[in-house]
């Protein structure tokens, strides 16, 4: 069951690489939030109930509801066009994300470690790198933020793999989530909307040598 969830997570990455509209990205984020909700329930049998409840609440509230909702609000408020504006064609994106996944699978097969759950490792790393790829290949600031949230989701999957032994680290990861969502989205992007009307990353390109 957990494998199915994780693999569908990987499939969302492929979908994300060819999505054209911001709305689609948001739906994928919501979907990923629900996947993580299920995955955290299934993969953390050993930690205390209270902690588990807290983690699941965090995934559902922050990842699946609050963050996508705030992003949608920002998009509407700043009247951002609905197209993602990638630098590369969809086909190239698909090819790159596929090769990311293949490379992480090859990499994980080269590791000799019985402690490691390979599926977690592959999905986490490929999500992380896909997030980075989304950041460098899309024009808008808002897609950069979406890319960052994808990275966060990948890191969360990885932290689930070690969560049973070290709940402390899981809680740290949740702190990271909350930090990102409150700080980057709430305070900061509202400010960007106030100061510059066109939230395109091209406007923020003058600070250089």
């Amino acid at each position: 069951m957990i494998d199915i969830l994780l693999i569908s997570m990987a499939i969302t990455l492929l979908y994300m690489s060819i999505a054209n509209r911001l709305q689609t990205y948001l739906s994928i984020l919501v979907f990923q939030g629900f996947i993580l909700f299920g995955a955290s329930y299934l993969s953390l049998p050993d930690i205390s109930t209270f902690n588990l409840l807290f983690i699941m609440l965090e995934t559902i509230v922050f990842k699946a509801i609050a963050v996508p909702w705030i992003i949608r609000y920002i998009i509407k408020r700043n009247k951002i066009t609905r197209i993602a504006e990638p630098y590369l064609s969809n086909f190239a994106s698909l090819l790159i994300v596929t090769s990311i996944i293949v490379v992480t699978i090859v990499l994980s097969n080269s590791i000799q470690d019985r402690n490691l759950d390979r599926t977690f490792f592959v999905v986490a790393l490929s999500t992380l790198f896909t997030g980075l790829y989304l950041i460098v290949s899309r024009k808008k600031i808002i897609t950069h933020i979406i890319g960052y949230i994808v990275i966060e989701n990948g890191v969360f999957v990885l932290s689930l793999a070690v969560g049973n032994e070290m709940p402390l680290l899981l809680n740290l990861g949740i702190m990271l989530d909350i930090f990102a969502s409150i700080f980057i989205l709430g305070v900061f992007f509202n400010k960007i909307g106030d100061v510059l009307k066109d939230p395109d990353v091209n406007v923020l390109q003058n600070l250089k040598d």
Partner: protein
Amino acid sequence: MFLAATFAISTALVINKNRGVNYALVLLYQCLFLGFGVYQYFYINTIQHGVFKSDPLAVLMLLALCFISVPVLFHAYRYIDKDDSEATPHTRGVFFAALILLITACSMAYLSDHLAVTWIFIEITTLSASVLIYHHRSIRALEGTWKYVFICAISITFIYVGILFLSLSLKEAGVQDISFTSLMKNAGKLDPFWLKLSFLFIYTGLTAKLGLVPMYTAGIDAKDKAPGPVGAILASALMNVGFVSLYRVYAVISGTPSMSWAGTIMMIAAILSVFVATVYMTRIKNIKRMFAYSGIEHMGIAVLALAAGGIGVYAAILHIFLHTLVKPVLFLQYNQIYRIYQSKSIYDLGNYFRYNRAGAIVILLGFISVAAMPPSALFVSEFMVFQSLFSGGHLLIMAVLLILLTFIIWGLGVNIFKLLFTPRISEGLLKEEINVPKINPWESLPQYVLIIASVYLAYNPPAKLVWMIQEAVKLIQ
């Protein structure tokens, strides 16, 4: 205790609108902070609250921060009072609150003995620094803040992934505790593959604070856009946070066979950083960014020495320590330059000696210091760095480094001397020659004190300082 007091004071600063009360609170914090430094100095090598440990390296950096915090807060007061015409009671309160939060977070990150706690405080430094960078609320400041926050957020995620990999390597050893002390004790038992992977991620993440190759860009924009006194903290104390954290992680890995591998990684990144700094410093026209790149160069040299090992470890710590005293000089003096010319482009600057003699001498001395010319402090440590590279057999790297440093001195010198002696390029004299603000020479006094202190400590180090550095060196096995 100290932490709680800081939070209380910074909240009070945000709420309070009265000017007098504001400065009284900052003064109170200053006394408290100095007291905190002295307390840690007398209770060296004790474990406090389970996660903080006042080991010699931490205390050394803390004392350096205490020392520069006095001029920085003084100049911050001057800056808000005189230079910043748009300051409202609210922005002033927020500015000082964020500044003291930044100083506290830096010192706590030095003292922390727990990887997770270090991580948290690094995150707090990002938060408070971004408030300070955005102080001017212009679109450029926003851009600087945005880039800084975004890159730091990614870097902090990288550190987190590194911690996760480290915990995977701990599984093998059957250890649960990720405090540095326990990690170093069990270093031999850690799984080498995961340890290497985690070092790679933690190192990449820390470079955002440390100012080395993959993620140095954020720091440059931040120092450029932040007000001068804040730039002084960002360029010294905050970079030290990265260095201290890297030092501790490297200390863990130095107990394992992977040490030379990690050393190679650090060496490559360090020499690349010096190279990048060279490229930019020889063609840059913005004087504040030039100071920022000079910080990249010095961090590169220090990490190179750390990787070379031997006497290099000692040299690296000494270099960082002296750099902390020297670099704020330039950033603090920069504000006075800006007050005269209202610009930071090198084309608008010139004949500084005519307008402010005391300040011009500070710049000249500061140039000699950061270029590490013989009578200055950094010369001592940089000499030791070359010694360590030579005895470590890294002759090629040493040659490359020497060539790059020559270029840096040239690039820095051209711009500094242009600023000091030649008339400015754009239109000869300043338009309103009469209206040039007179700067009180006493305002440069803290800079003189810092330079003299750095030279004194370099050529005539007190036994206690040498002892602290030697104790810190012992962490690297």
